[in-house]
């Protein structure tokens, strides 16, 4: 949030020259960040002169002394270095550049600065330093800046705002990301624009990365990690259900040289085999994880499948010192467990967690808090709302739009994988791949592709996406890898993984569900269409905002006006997740009033929303492509800033053109997350006051390139990483 950063959010690192009182904290005469004895000495030394004047009357006297004593012991905000989001990516449209943290090692890293926002006294050109990540107290005044590339690069800053000052951050792709046994995807770095050219940290320098890395130079999560791997083709798990005791083990060959590592448990689906996930087990092991893939008791059902997941998890923890001849002895960290299940196994892992939470199953050597993430690949939903429920555990859904088995069909709740995703109440993400079928996510299942001819992505690419997305989710939740989340929400056009074909459509949802989220509208409360769930008024122009349950109302995908949420196969009748829907044939607007409690969003980083085109709606059919829309922020002074989501990618994707279940083409609704940095709004209009917002508006229509359209909308909120 550049504007806010430069004007309001200075960081107290105290670089002030003695005797110079700051405007923000007049009694801090010596500039040490504290009001104390040093300040009193200076004031007394200047008694009767202007030197110690705090009141502005030109004379140091009793009034100044009273003012100083009244703030005795206070810590003063100092000007210090300024937080500034330098790293980012170029955009296809205005604002042309957007702050993000992650750049693939193989691709150019970019950064930008707004010349209009630089501190007074800045000298151009100025050096840009890339420094090792540091935090908090490490930003000490006078610290020499040491560029990890050897030397800083010089920026010739131009007039013309940020768009005129987008530069490549040179040579960061050459850095050794794996140095020091780094198990994060990327190398965290900080950027410093040394505005005074001093070569040391000093007052007014722009810093990207004060409290977390400002940028990550990331390895490609599709590719194998740094470790050679070993596979134990089978071992027998003690205590597992008879007939389902066999499991396969994958681990880094050098595991004994590593600290204890997270445990990943893979639970296959019905008619599948534990030996079908070598591609995933070895991939994760190459990134340091200890992985098992076990026989799963799926034929009876989900309860039995969940039992084998629970049993095998306990077994490998208790047997780690003996299995594989002791190769992984004491190397499993039982407080960091990830469960991955496919199809019935995908529901089984959610049910397994539910059983622990419900207290109907008590593992002997781990607990609910040790399950760091649950990942379901195309899960079934036999057990329904209460039991096929991830609750608050971090949850990921991976799903193919051409799934011929767990099909996402409107007539069969069991086959609707998104039901589980919608029930997840914690951190969650989903990856939905056009043209991927059910068994693309294992090595050897039968062909079940169900989609338009020529749209199959095939097993190779589906598994590349699978490896990358699952690894990113595990890194995020089990290693605290701050550079992993962006792989889970950025549009492919923004974070392009070379292995993913340009023609492949990947639709992502991401909801960190952070405690700091400020929800404007999630449709769960205040169900009147004229009031948002946050209590503000809602009004519309040239459209109608409907609200309802995320359920297709009949058993077909044919568009009928009585089924406003056609295609939303995301819940059973016992589920309660709601959303909104609207359509347009002219320029339209939805206006959400922000109540005072939501006015100050200066502490947040993004406006987030999820949108999906209405499958087979006549307007969706007419549009026949990605749909653009825009969001506008309005402040109390009447200032506003508008950004198009198409600037960040392709807009809201057209639903996968699968046929069946009625007339027309288009499958289940694909909600897709858009996270627009608030700093981009400020970049568009520097006068916008993010601390005094009064409204959020959504715009759609011919002016934005969509003459007609139909969108489903949910989870409009302000968030931060």
């Amino acid at each position, binding site marked *: 949030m550049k504007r806010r950063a430069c004007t309001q959010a200075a960081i107290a690192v105290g670089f002030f020259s003695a005797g110079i009182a700051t405007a923000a904290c007049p009694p801090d005469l010596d500039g040490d960040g504290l009001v104390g004895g040093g300040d009193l000495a200076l004031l007394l030394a200047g008694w009767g002169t202007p030197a110690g004047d705090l009141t502005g009357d030109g004379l140091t006297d009793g009034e100044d002394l009273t003012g100083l004593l009244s703030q005795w012991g206070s810590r003063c905000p100092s000007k210090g270095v300024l937080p500034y989001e330098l790293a980012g990516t170029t955009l296809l449209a205005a604002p042309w550049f957007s702050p993000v943290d992650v750049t693939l090692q193989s691709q150019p890293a970019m950064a930008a600065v707004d010349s209009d926002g630089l501190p007074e006294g800045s000298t151009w050109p100025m050096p840009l330093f890339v420094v090792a990540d540091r935090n908090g107290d490490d930003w000490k005044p006078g610290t020499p800046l040491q560029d990890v590339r050897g030397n800083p690069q010089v920026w010739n800053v131009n007039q013309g705002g940020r768009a005129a000052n987008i530069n490549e951050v040179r040579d960061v792709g050459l850095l050794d990301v794996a140095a020091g046994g780094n198990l994060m995807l990327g190398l965290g770095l900080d950027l410093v624009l040394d505005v005074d050219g001093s070569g040391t940290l000093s007052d007014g320098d722009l810093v990207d990365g004060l409290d977390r890395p400002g940028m990550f130079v990331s390895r490609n999560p599709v590719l194998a990690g740094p470790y050679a791997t070993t596979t134990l083709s*089978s071992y027998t798990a003690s205590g597992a259900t*008879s007939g389902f005791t066999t499991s396969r083990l994958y681990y880094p060959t050098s595991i004994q040289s590593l600290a204890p590592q997270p445990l990943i448990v893979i639970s296959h689906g019905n008619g599948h085999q534990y030996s079908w996930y070598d591609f995933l087990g070895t991939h994760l092991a190459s990134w340091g994880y200890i992985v098992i893939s076990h026989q799963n008791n799926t*034929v009876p059902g989900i309860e039995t499948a969940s039992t084998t997941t629970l049993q095998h998890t306990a077994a490998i923890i208790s047997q780690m010192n003996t299995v594989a001849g002791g190769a992984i002895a004491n190397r499993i960290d039982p407080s960091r467990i990830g469960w991955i299940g496919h199809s019935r196994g995908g529901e089984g892992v959610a049910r397994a967690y539910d059983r622990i939470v419900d207290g109907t199953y008590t593992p002997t050597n781990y607990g609910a808090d040790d399950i760091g993430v649950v990942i379901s690949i195309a899960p079934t939903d036999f057990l329904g709302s209460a039991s096929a429920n991830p609750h608050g555990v971090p949850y990921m859904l991976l799903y193919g739009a051409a799934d011929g*088995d767990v099909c996402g069909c409107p007539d069969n709740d069991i086959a609707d994988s998104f039901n589980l995703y919608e029930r997840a109440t914690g951190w969650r993400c989903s990856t939905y791949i056009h043209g991927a079928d059910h068994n693309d996510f294992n090595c050897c299942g*039968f062909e*079940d592709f169900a989609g338009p001819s020529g749209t199959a992505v095939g097993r190779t690419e589906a598994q590349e996406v699978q490896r990358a997305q699952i690894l990113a989710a595990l890194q995020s939740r089990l290693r605290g890898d701050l550079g992993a989340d962006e792989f889970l929400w950025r549009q492919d056009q923004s974070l392009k993984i070379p292995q993913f074909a340009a023609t492949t459509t990947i639709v992502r949802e991401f909801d960190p569900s952070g405690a700091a989220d400020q929800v404007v509208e999630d449709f769960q409360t205040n169900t009147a269409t004229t009031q948002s769930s946050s209590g503000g008024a809602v009004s519309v122009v040239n459209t109608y905002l409907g609200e309802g349950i995320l359920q297709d109302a009949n058993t077909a995908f044919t568009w009928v006006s009585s089924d406003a949420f056609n295609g939303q196969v995301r819940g059973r009748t016992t589920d309660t997740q709601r959303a909104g829907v609207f359509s347009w044939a002219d320029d339209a607007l939805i206006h959400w009033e922000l109540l005072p409690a939501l006015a100050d969003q200066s502490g947040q980083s993004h406006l987030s929303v999820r949108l999906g085109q209405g499958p087979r709606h006549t307007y969706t059919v007419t549009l026949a492509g990605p749909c653009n829309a825009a969001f506008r922020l309005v402040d109390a002074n009447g200032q506003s800033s508008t950004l198009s989501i198409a600037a960040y990618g392709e807009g809201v994707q057209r639903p996968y053109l699968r046929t069946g279940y009625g007339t027309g083409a288009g499958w289940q609704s694909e909600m897709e997350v858009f996270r627009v940095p608030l700093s981009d709004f400020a970049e568009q209009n520097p006068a916008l006051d993010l601390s005094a917002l009064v409204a959020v508006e959504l715009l759609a229509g011919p002016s934005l390139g969509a003459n007609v359209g139909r969108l489903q909308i949910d989870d409009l909120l302000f968030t931060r990483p």
Partner: protein
Amino acid sequence: MMHTIAISIVALAVLPMPDAAEQVVAAGQNAEAAAHEEGSGIPAIPTTPAAAGEVLWARAFEVGEPWASDFRSDHPTVQRGFIIVLKADAALAFPRQVACPVLMAGDMPCEVIEPVAGSDFVAVIVPRLEATRAEDLETDSTTTGSTRTDAQAFTSLDLYWATPMLPEQMTAKMGADALQEARAKGVSDMWRAGEPSRATDPLERDLAGAAVPGQRLGVADRAAIVAIAIAARDAVLAR
């Protein structure tokens, strides 16, 4: 009393006993290849209740360690029953992720073992919940008596595919209802009608040539039964 035959799995020599899972992997790959060639996906679920199909191989068994079956919600204890290899409509036997037709023996779901997509050969454990009846127990002392009683029990089985659902969710009442419906539709005994030479006395037709044809197998536990069932299926498949 239980009459345990001292016979190891390896001693069932003519039943090949490779790694069961690897066998199924190979079968799955073959099925996938076939599906590619035919351009087929998942077959539609046939109408149920439906006839079970043809029993190609069967053996009675008794285990030393009874188990609580996961194939019905009340988890009945299974100690005796039959291992069968069934040639069924592949669409009925197809291991879907969504609800599959449930193979029933009377009012009790059978335990289908590691089904293979696209294959019409199904390895099945048929539980005999009536096995505690006096007339069954008293014939255990002689092989002949045991076999005949097993044969009688076997040939009188109601064997059929019931409505798709998860076996673990089926109650005894639902099982009884399914049986009633299957009998009413005349499908529960159709498995005996196809090829009388095979069906009338299947216990005499140990196609895999086990050591003592028709003799009830006495083995330790369910795991052994599962291994035998898979080996039998693969052996039949290989013929």
